[in-house]
């Protein structure tokens, strides 16, 4: 029995939450993946393709698998997908593009330590947030077979 708010918070924080929602698309072609940076403000840096060098991020940069995106205390940026989906990366965040196979990623979620994963037409694209925050806005959902999966990891105590 959960007796107070702290217990409830602890309980929720230690459960792996899996939410799956089913939406709409089928027959959506798997085009080349395209995710670009936009609304880059303040100090935002990008390691490209897993490489060691960190570049200043600028609007219009196209992200590739293996990129690491970092925002400083004053930095924010948006990830803009071709289908209109946007994810806003908050300040003091660190994000890895782990897989990028289609252009029509639908990101969902999250807060600190969230893994954002989505599928479309049998393909998967995902980013993992190592620290900081990200907000996602889904602009377009195509048809009922679209699936969005959101996994939140509990915070280390």
């Amino acid at each position, binding site marked *: 029995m959960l007796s107070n708010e702290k217990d409830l918070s602890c309980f929720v924080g230690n459960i792996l939450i899996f939410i799956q929602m089913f939406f709409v698309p089928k027959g959506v072609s798997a085009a080349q993946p395209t995710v670009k940076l936009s609304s880059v403000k303040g100090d935002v840096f990008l390691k*490209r*393709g*897993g*490489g*060691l*060098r960190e*570049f200043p991020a600028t609007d219009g*940069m*196209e992200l*590739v*698998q*293996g990129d690491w995106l970092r925002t400083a205390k004053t930095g924010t940026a948006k990830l803009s997908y071709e289908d209109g989906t946007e994810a806003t990366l908050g300040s003091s965040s660190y994000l*890895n593009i*782990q*897989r990028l196979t289609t252009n029509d990623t639908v990101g969902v979620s999250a807060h600190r330590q969230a893994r954002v994963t989505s599928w479309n037409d049998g393909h*998967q694209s*995902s980013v*993992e947030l190592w620290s900081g925050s990200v907000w996602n806005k889904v602009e377009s959902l195509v048809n009922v077979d679209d699936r969005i999966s959101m996994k939140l990891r509990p915070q280390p105590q």
Partner: protein
Amino acid sequence: MGYETKDNWLNGGYADGQGVKAQFNEPSGLALGPNGELYIADTGNRRIRVLSSQGEVTTLAGFGTTMIDNTSYIKGGFKDGLGSEARFNFPSGIAVSAAGTVYVADTYNHCLREINTEGVVTTIAGNGVHGKQNGFLEQAQFDGPFAIIPNRDGNLLIIDQLNNSVRFLEWHP
């Protein structure tokens, strides 16, 4: 030698050749072959290179010439086949068996690759989707495998970096 400096950063390059004429691009893995040659995971070039005992650097596997915008890194890809046509995405860890088979931790393809002594690249474990799944080779999932080493019995130990794990692959080629 011959590397360019840009914005105070020494950019890598790609060139085969003798000794200092050769260029690399943020190499991150090194393994000694049975005949004294050195195998190098040339990460930024998405290639596997070989340095012979005579000092000649050649490309064993990996292809691709398209650069990531405004960088010196070649874009990654995935393709099995002849070494000259195969594609890697951030190959980082490398190991060589006593028989001369080369194993590669192909980090951002989230899989393990093998280059046989004929120079043909195949995928031996990992289905390309990042995750953490044990099981048969086609079911196994990794998340950024970064290093690989065979043990005494020829099985493979893998640093599965983003899973914070060491994985074990029973391997009897």
